[in-house]
């Protein structure tokens, strides 16, 4: 009984059903996609100033190790990550805080007073007291933390994914 156009009753219903079905598919499908990818989007980075103690605790010109832990929540689980840094107090206000993570493949370096170097046990890399590569495979000097002083206390900026 199509009078004004050549749209049949059956064709009209098919179109309406297809349209309604598409809308329902989007309404159901989008939340599911959001639900699945949401943890990938929520990965807020930590950006925190962590106190590493009074500056007076650190003897000048001797790298001193400081360890601390940070708690991270991943979904339903809390993970405690250990961090370790070397604080090097130079002359005057010059402060360097070096990460113990080797820039080669991520092993932990340790300072030796005798040789006045940091040694990485994995591939025998050596860094100077200032963190410069002396020998071995590391592609760049030891990573440094941004520092700030507040009321005699030294803070370092910890950025973690």
């Amino acid at each position, binding site marked *: 009984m199509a009078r004004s156009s050549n749209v049949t009753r059956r064709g009209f219903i098919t179109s309406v059903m297809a349209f309604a079905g598409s809308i329902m598919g989007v309404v159901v499908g989008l939340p*599911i996609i959001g*639900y699945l990818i*949401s943890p990938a*989007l929520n990965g807020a980075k930590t950006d925190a100033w962590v106190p590493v103690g009074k500056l007076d605790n650190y003897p000048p010109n001797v790298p001193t190790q400081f360890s601390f832990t940070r708690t991270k929540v991943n979904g339903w*689980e809390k993970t405690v990550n250990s961090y370790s840094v070397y604080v090097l107090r130079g002359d005057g206000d010059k402060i360097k805080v070096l990460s113990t993570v080797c820039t080669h493949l991520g092993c932990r370096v340790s300072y030796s007073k005798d040789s006045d170097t940091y040694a990485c046990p994995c591939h025998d890399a050596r860094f100077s007291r200032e963190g410069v590569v002396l020998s071995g495979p590391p592609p760049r000097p030891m990573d440094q933390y941004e520092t700030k002083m507040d009321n005699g206390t030294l803070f370092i900026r910890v950025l973690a994914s």
Partner: protein
Amino acid sequence: MISKRVFPWLDERLGLTTIYKTTLDRMVPKVNWWFTLGSATLFLFVMQLVTGIMLSVYYVPSPDKAYDSIEYIMTGVAFGWLIRGIHHWGATLMVITVFIHMLRVFFYAAYKYPREITWTTGVFLLLATLGMGFTGYLLPWNQKAYWATTVGTSIAGSVPGIGDFILRALRGGSDLSAVTLARFFSAHIWMLPAVIIALIGVHLYLVIRLGISSVPKEND
């Protein structure tokens, strides 16, 4: 349009038109709205399947993480509240539609010859649906879930003679424990769904093969 050429090619090989005609375009007697409850239940089952698979992405069936993982679904994941909400209310609704569906078949005497096997598979589908409700209820591992399952398994344990064995088999030991949670989870996401899907296959095959019964008349 390309589909004008692609569809006949596919249809000739897959028999799509035949499938459509036998499943959706088949002849049915003049019936009423009570006859839609089987389809409604099937729709709800598919919803439960989809939302259940989604929930399994984040849910952890362990006593120390189950509750926390659901808390994470509810507050930490986008639309987690919606997915879990649909699964929660869909479960209740499905039990209701299954039950009314059964009552309709019963009062219209649609279980009689030649549909006895459709009815029998339907009875097992009802039991499996209730089993899904029972096993799923424990999974949030909150106080309500814990005590409901304690009571439920105790009731099963009151069977004369073999009661204690049934209770131990359900709980995986004498106490409600991590073992209980793990086996209820397994039953909820693997065993019962497998049984239900197989039974739905037989049930629907029979509905299509035998056709549906009409509303009984005065002289029937």
